[in-house]
């Protein structure tokens, strides 16, 4: 049984202009111990998807349709109190701009201890302290920094502390939303290695959200490409990177520089994300797609199956390859 099953998930935000469908009809599964990278431009719904998994949408956000099953349990049917058990106890989330995810007025060690205590009632002071120390060792922060405040940490150390905090209750799934975006490239590489190492060592599943397909390619077994609320391509990393099926994935790959490989001109994707309140009825990428056919705009795109585990939301994917 897969750890995470997301089926037909649709999430919308109430706005002054009406209901904006930020995520529409997204389905995927994730096995225990595997990692999924979600990529796409800002505004494509990846963060909304991550928050919906933990039911942490802002007050104007609603899950409109679909199902989220975690470890066999229906998360959308849970009460708020039951959800509190799931949060951090089973699913931990590292948020975007994680630099600000630590409360500035509390000591780092205390903030991690708080998570340990919240999900381990009955743990004595010494047991909590021992666990926090263990976590610090796990992510390589020296013990004596336990009593420091967040502002005394460097960016990379804060990120390590947050990873330690995410692992505090031995979650089965960690959702990491742009965890390295605010860091410089060297620290970013270290943190990515760290995440990968811990993910393998502890066998946790990972949903890694990033706008940077190169980062995702480094860390994840699976890649999901999102565009304007749709999951447009989903498959094993090597297949998606080596044989991208969706025109958007190809465009995304062509717009990023690579260190290895041939030197070539980068190709920006023309146009912009469509307005969520005014989507074309058919394929949402049709307005920017170089291979667009007249009917793409009006007819809902169908899936093309490129391999048993690799599917693409474009009926022409096989022809255009």
């Amino acid at each position: 049984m897969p750890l995470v099953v997301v089926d037909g998930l649709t999430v919308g935000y109430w706005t002054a202009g009406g209901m904006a469908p930020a995520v529409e009809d997204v389905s995927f599964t994730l096995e225990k111990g595997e990692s999924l990278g979600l990529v796409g431009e800002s505004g494509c719904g990846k963060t909304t998807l991550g928050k919906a998994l933990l039911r942490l949408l802002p007050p104007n956000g609603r899950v409109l349709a679909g199902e989220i099953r975690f470890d066999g349990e229906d998360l959308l049917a849970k009460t708020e109190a039951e959800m509190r058990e799931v949060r951090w106890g089973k699913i931990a989330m590292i948020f975007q701009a994680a630099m600000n995810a630590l409360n500035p007025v509390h000591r780092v060690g205390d903030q991690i201890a708080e998570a340990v205590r919240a999900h381990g009632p009955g743990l004595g002071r010494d047991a909590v302290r021992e666990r926090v120390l263990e976590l610090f060792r796990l992510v390589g922060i020296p013990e004596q920094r336990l009593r420091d405040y967040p502002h005394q940490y460097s960016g990379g150390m804060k990120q390590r502390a947050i990873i330690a905090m995410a692992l505090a209750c031995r979650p089965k799934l960690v959702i990491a939303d742009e965890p390295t975006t605010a860091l410089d490239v060297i620290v970013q590489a270290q943190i990515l290695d760290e995440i990968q190492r811990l993910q393998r060592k502890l066998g946790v599943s990972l949903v890694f959200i990033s706008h940077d397909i190169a980062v995702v390619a480094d860390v994840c077994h699976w890649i999901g490409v999102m565009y304007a609320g749709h999951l447009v391509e989903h498959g094993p990393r090597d297949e998606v990177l080596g044989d991208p099926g969706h025109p958007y994935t190809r465009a995304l790959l062509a717009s990023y520089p690579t260190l290895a490989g041939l030197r070539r001109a980068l190709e920006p994707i023309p146009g912009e994300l469509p307005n969520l309140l005014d989507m074309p009825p058919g394929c949402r990428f049709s307005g920017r797609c170089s291979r667009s056919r007249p009917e793409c705009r009006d007819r809902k795109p169908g899936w093309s199956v490129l391999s048993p585990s690799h599917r693409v939301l474009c009926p022409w994917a096989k022809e255009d390859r």
Partner: protein
Amino acid sequence: MGLWRYAARRLVQIAGLFYVILTVLFIVFRLAPGDPVERMVDPSMDPEDAEVLMAQLGLDRPVGVQYLYYLKNFVSGDMGISFHYGEPVAEIIADRLPNTVLLFTSSTILAAVVGVLLGKRASWSKGRSTDTVLTFSALATHTVFLPWLALLLIWLFAYRLGWFPITGMVSEDVWLDPGATWWTRAVDVAHHMVLPLASLFLIQFGTFLLVMRSSMLETLKEDYILTARAKGLPERVIRNHHAAPNAALPVLTTIGLSLAFSINGGAITETVFTWPGIGRELVLAVSQNDYPLAQASFLLIAAVVLLANLVVDLLYAVLDPRIRY
């Protein structure tokens, strides 16, 4: 230690500022209309005697010399003799100051505590009826005209209902009775203090409520609040442990500022309730051209405001670990 060095540096700055205020006050008082001698002496007094009096008070010297005497006397702690009372100003101040401090510290602390707690509640139920009621009451009481509120309270609770005394700080019979214990005396003062305290509290608490509310709403948008939610913490812990300590910081600044306000509001409150404090003394001194007393009261107020701001700055360092001096 950094904190002590910072405090020392700030004290030096404050001393400099205080000197400027000292000088400005000297000039302002010399420019003010009205001749003090005319107030002090009988108009029928003959001019020669009036001159002797002027000489006694030092008012016949050139302004520059007066200024130097003024500084010298201030440094030696001699604030002069009140024209009106004929007693040393320092003694009058020492007599009135504790009354003012009692009234204002209590009202500011009470208003800050209540305002912060209610502001927290309001922000947590943003847009719902609790929030609407709290925000509306805060705005309403905050914008009320203080003398009107004070008179209304006196009329209703002291005059019509007779629950509280109309004026003063003590009942003479209690304080002249040698058998009265300190406890009965304290109760007597508290009884007199209810109405002035209530009016100052009502005027002040709205500011704290509104500042705390908007500061909380800002704080709730922070990532660490989202993280606290994701950690599965109960709402109460998120509110009191994660949001409130961060949101309370701007409230501190408000306390410093509100002290300056409460002192001029204090002049009104003390006058309306005939509370024997510095504020009322200041109003009397100004209206009677009692230079020495008015000067000393102004200086005292300046000193209190400057020191209160220093205390607020130092408290910041205690509450916010990011601030180190």
